[in-house]
């Protein structure tokens, strides 16, 4: 499936920003499930985009921009062809052995309630793959999708206590549970081609867990499915924080607000608009 993506992030400031520095994890890599045919990054301020790779193998762009400015906007745009790999993320760049991804972080650390839930929802399953699928179903069932209940620094434990959250919270919870039952698991940030319209206000996130003899398998607990042709992988890491599409800091620029516009659409439908 050919998918066109445009992702615009705009920061606006009530008082002008003197300078800003950002790290962008906004460049997808190829793997068996996707081929990036065209991708570009634009920052609407004078700056040098320095490219490097982080420890997890993600492509990172870094820039510093000098103000004053009232807004700062980053647009990434491109086209990707996706292939159904039955949820298995093969052909990925791996910088760590799977066991690194057993490492819990502050955002994924399971409390007793999460550990109990992970055990209870996977009890009796034969084999890790079956357990991970059971976990996917149980978590999708247990948690309600709610864009107002949590924020970007909400931990898995907090989201679990609320019983609600966004894809990031679902992913953290899935990762917390998978690691708790001994499966290496990681956070995937990316995009999702929805069936209910092209315009979105955020990217997407899901999890991958490692299964012996099979490799990394995707699980999208917010949608209750395994990732397929509609999922575009952007970055992987231990949690949201280390995979975040944008991390930044600024001097000045009090009263910051952020607006995200994401358009994910099949290429045929958007060709006329994007040219």
């Amino acid at each position: 499936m050919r998918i066109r993506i445009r992702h615009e992030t705009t920061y606006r400031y009530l008082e002008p920003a003197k300078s800003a520095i950002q790290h962008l994890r906004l460049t997808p890599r190829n793997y068996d499930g996707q081929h990036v045919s065209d991708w570009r990054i634009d920052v609407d301020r004078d700056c040098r985009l320095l490219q490097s790779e982080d420890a997890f193998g993600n492509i990172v762009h870094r820039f510093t921009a000098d103000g004053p400015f009232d807004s700062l906007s980053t647009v990434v745009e491109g086209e990707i062809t996706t292939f159904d790999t039955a949820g298995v993320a093969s052909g990925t760049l791996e910088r760590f052995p799977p066991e690194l991804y057993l490492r819990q972080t502050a955002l994924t650390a399971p409390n007793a309630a999460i550990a109990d839930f992970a055990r209870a929802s996977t009890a009796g399953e034969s084999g890790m793959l079956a357990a991970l699928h059971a976990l996917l179903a149980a978590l999708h069932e247990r948690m309600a999708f709610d864009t107002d209940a949590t924020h970007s620094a909400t931990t898995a434990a907090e989201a679990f206590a609320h019983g609600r959250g966004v894809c990031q919270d679902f992913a953290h919870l899935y990762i917390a549970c998978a690691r708790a039952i001994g499966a290496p698991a990681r956070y995937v940030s990316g995009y999702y081609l929805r069936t209910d319209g092209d315009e979105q206000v955020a990217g997407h996130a899901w999890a991958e867990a490692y299964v012996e003899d099979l490799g990394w398998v995707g699980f999208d607990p917010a949608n209750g499915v395994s990732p397929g042709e509609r999922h575009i992988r952007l970055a992987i890491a231990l949690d949201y924080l280390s995979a975040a599409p944008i991390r930044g800091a600024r001097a000045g620029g009090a009263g910051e607000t952020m607006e995200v516009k994401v358009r994910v659409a099949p290429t045929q439908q958007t060709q006329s608009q994007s040219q």
Partner: protein
Amino acid sequence: MDHRVTQFDEMDGVDGATRPPYHKLSQWLAGTPPELLASRREQAELLFRRIGITFAVYGAQEATERLIPFDILPRIIARSEWSALEKGLVQRVTALNLFLKDIYGAGDILKAGVVPSELVYRNPGYCPEMAGRRVPHDVYCHIAGVDIVRTDDHGFYVLEDNARTPSGVSYMLENREVMMRLFPELFAMHRVAPIEDYPDELLATLRSVAPPRAPGDPTIAVLTPGQYNSAYYEHSFLADKLGVELVEGRDLFVKDDIVYMRTTEGPRRVDVIYRRIDDDFLDPLTFRPDSALGVAGLIGAYHAGNVTLANAVGTGVADDKAMYTYMPEIIKFYLGQEPLLQNVPTWRCREPDALSYVLDHLDELVVKEVNGSGGYGMLVGPHASRAQIEEFRAKLKAHPDNFIAQPTLALSTCPISLAKGVAPRHVDLRPFVLSGAKGVRVVPGGLTRVAMTEKSLVVNSSQGGGTKDTWVIDDAILGPA
């Protein structure tokens, strides 16, 4: 079990016969009236107050800044003893640096199964962001403070490898300065190895690990969390002695992967940062996003090879108390040598047999949190109440991985001077080990920490411990004068 039975005193040995390094001090003490000692103790207190050397104590009722108790009697080590200790320290820190290079690089020691990989990859001190990076000259731990204890005439044991941001060196230097002012006669009687060149050695070490592209005269800065940090005094002291700027995160900024310091003459490029901020707080773009102490973009500049951080990021994995138990194997693996310094025998509570032994002997053992430091979160079995022991029993059962246990060592004692006379107190020793491009070096001596309370084994300054000047003296002039 009465620990005093086998008690080794650094001056009086086990049998009360004065050991050779202390002959002159002992004679001098015998001939010195108590009033003189009392007045020197007072002078010492005054001098330290004037210097303003203080230490903030966490967890006290109110934020307290206080003097660390100082004892005026030097702790003396003979050159021959020191040489053996020094060789052991050099060996140990050399292995530590090789270990860090390996686990952030090829991972040979994990592939060989010498150290369990989960102890590395799941260690809070392990920093995934450092994987696959090289640091100048492969030096990670530029400044180590290795805690040493002795139990008898021959035995030095390593208690902890402090590989992150060990503190205390300012006390070592100040103690010497104060002692030279108070007791010129004692220095005249002994040939004491100088330590005053520590700042020069530190500066040379930091310069030697500057990024390859840095100018011949690299700009160095000391990065402090600020005046509310317990070791702020030391940070400003060291910056002063090194002749470099003391900066906080807000004094630095990063532009296009280059670190600059704001100065009155405009931005100035910084090449080497002796940072006294923990990894987690260094850069809000890479680590804790809520850190106001760090510098946004610092790690980007670091990975780009434009600035050197000392110590390197991620050294905490090597001074973890669980990793400590593998140090003998680590030394053998990289150097093909037997360790010159012994570890204290340690039970890894993560191993079921060890755990059950520890649970059965809590009243005899010292139990420590794997990632704890500063004497917080520690059980000293023989001195603990029943309630404290039961509290630790519950903690151990819940999270055995988080703990190790060691026998209660009969730490050596050293005489201290009190109003009521001279009395023995337990001591340890923290020598400071510097690793640079030209190798590993140890300043003779180190910081001797004293448990000021009778029979107490806890020497940490955060727990009321004090310090002493530490002398390494030439054996040639030992013996009765």
